[in-house]
């Protein structure tokens, strides 16, 4: 039942006791405000780090050969491991766990890439169409290398954004011919890469692997494999299997850790996942601490308020107030204060997060460690409700005690 008179009484009491009202309200406001900021910052951190992984296929890995460190089967240490097209076929055949597999190699030596009078030095990679299934490049214009390019050893190239910028400026590169180490290649696509890790990635030029092997005299050379296992397999197991398979084929000791290296996003993301778990636990730890501090603050102030009001309660009782009316007066007052200030804290916190989000967007800041701070509104609401309830409880127990004591005793309380 909505009792206007009671609310008027509560409102008047609160207005007459501005200090204690504001103090209680501030405790709750601050608790919720900090909680929202903390949770938002934690989420921002998580989003930022997550976006660093971009479009990398889940559980993608790269395997490349290096120099052997252990002599094996009569071969001295220090042999450089080069992969071949046969390795590619063999992995495809022997290791069914692998879903996507692409071999690639890089153009070596000194060379320049030119278009008309513009030129530059960019890494050129010979790759296969499957490579894009693993790496996840964005192709805003044209296409990536396809199987026909590979089969026919076509002289086509896909350029990184930085390459386009240097060679073409504002000109449309699609269909134009660029010269790589004296050979003309037709540009068939431009890729864009989300969250590129450094210059190497945006400066890259992709040409078909078969073309590179054929034209630039690197017959049958593959220096690295990009691959992604089927989802149901443990990527680390697959990595081990692939490495062992390659080691056997190249007479590399299975104990040789340096001969065949691999980067496994499954392992990386596991590490990052661990970091997230750490951050989440930390954020929750601090949040719960903040809430407890808020609860203690509210509880404390409610205790003091009730103590301070003992005499008032005695007077009210002598004038005919029932214990129930005393309790509900105090509890409702505490609920009003905590819920209003909790709501304000919620709004202020979310407002600040939105402001950060907006200004990051407006100034186009892309921070790899912080992106899109946001808060799970359910959690914030639950926290507010917890504070309101505890505020009410903190008021309830002393109020019950105060309401049950003898008015004469209360009146003696000076």
């Amino acid at each position, binding site marked *: 039942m909505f009792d206007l008179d009671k609310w008027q009484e509560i409102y008047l009491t609160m207005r007459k*006791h501005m200090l204690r009202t504001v103090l209680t309200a501030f405790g709750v406001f601050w608790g919720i405000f900090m909680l929202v900021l903390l949770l938002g910052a934690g989420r921002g951190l998580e989003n930022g780090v997550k976006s660093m992984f971009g479009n990398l296929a889940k559980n993608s890995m790269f395997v490349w050969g290096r120099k052997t460190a252990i002599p094996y089967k009569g071969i001295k240490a220090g042999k450089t491991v080069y992969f071949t097209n046969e390795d590619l076929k063999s992995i495809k055949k022997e290791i069914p766990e692998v879903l996507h597999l692409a071999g690639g190699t890089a153009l070596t030596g000194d060379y320049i890439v030119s278009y008309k009078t513009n030129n530059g030095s960019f890494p050129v990679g010979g790759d296969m169409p499957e490579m894009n299934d693993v790496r996840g490049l964005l192709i805003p214009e044209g296409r990536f290398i396809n199987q026909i390019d590979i089969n026919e050893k076509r002289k086509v190239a896909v350029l990184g954004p930085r390459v386009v910028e240097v060679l073409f400026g504002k000109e449309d590169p699609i269909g134009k011919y660029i010269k790589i180490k004296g050979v003309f290649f037709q540009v068939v696509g431009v890729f864009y890469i989300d969250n590129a890790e450094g210059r190497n990635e945006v400066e890259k030029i992709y040409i078909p692997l078969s073309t590179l092997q054929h034209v630039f005299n690197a017959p049958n050379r593959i220096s690295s494999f990009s691959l992604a296992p089927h989802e149901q397999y443990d990527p680390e197991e697959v990595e081990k299997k692939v490495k062992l398979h390659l080691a056997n084929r190249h007479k590399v000791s299975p104990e040789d850790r340096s001969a065949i290296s691999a980067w496994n996003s499954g392992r990386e993301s596991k590490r990052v996942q661990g970091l997230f778990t750490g951050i989440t636990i930390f954020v929750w730890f601090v949040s719960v601490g903040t809430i407890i501090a808020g609860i203690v603050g509210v509880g404390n102030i409610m205790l003091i308020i009730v103590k301070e009001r003992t005499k008032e309660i005695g007077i009210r009782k002598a*004038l005919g107030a029932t214990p129930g009316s005393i309790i509900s007066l105090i509890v409702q007052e505490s609920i009003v204060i905590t819920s209003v200030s909790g709501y304000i804290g919620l709004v202020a916190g979310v407002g600040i997060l939105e402001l950060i989000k907006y200004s990051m967007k407006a100034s186009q800041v892309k921070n790899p460690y912080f992106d899109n701070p946001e808060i799970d509104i359910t959690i914030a609401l639950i926290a507010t409700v917890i504070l309101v309830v505890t505020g009410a409880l903190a008021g309830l127990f002393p109020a019950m005690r105060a309401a049950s004591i003898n008015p004469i005793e209360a009146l003696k309380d000076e």
Partner: protein
Amino acid sequence: MPTSSLHVLKGINLDIEKGELVSFMGSSGSGKSTLLNILGILDDYDSGEYFLNNTFIKNLSQTQAAHYRNRFLGFVFQSFNLLPFKNAMENVALPLYYQNVRRKERNKIALEYLDKVGLLNWAEHTPAEMSGGQKQRVAIARSLISNPKVILADEPTGALDSQTSLEVMNLLKEINKTGITMIIVTHENEIAQMTNRIIRLKDGLII
């Protein structure tokens, strides 16, 4: 307190008729405060009977006690016991709040009672802005507003100078003349002499 068997009152047989003006006298420890608490339904008693307005008062729940206090009794205290954050009118109106009388209505009634004690012009003032005598008159107006059968005054002049005490006593006597039973606890002979009947207490007995 009631669980320990400390006998404060040791057999009081007392009838106070409707409309009487009675004073209780006694030194501290004589049991006069305990008697007043029982009469005011602020405290319960172990054995015996207490009828207030022909209603048997014993073992009441807190809510029932509150109801009887509100309907039958008015209190006047030595230290006035006004709520410091409410003005005179709101203080006077407070008992009606517990009778669920609307704010406008009860404030109107409160003004009438303030007028009766001669403080209409002070309605908007808080207790801190008033003298002791004025505060006690506000408290008296408050005790009257619920139209009680009995007014219990615990040392009503204890904090006042003799001139003001006299004024307050005259006011209480006037109220008594309208038919409200008046019970005044005091240790001052002068005050007790102004009542119609003096009941002296010593060691929990009437002497």
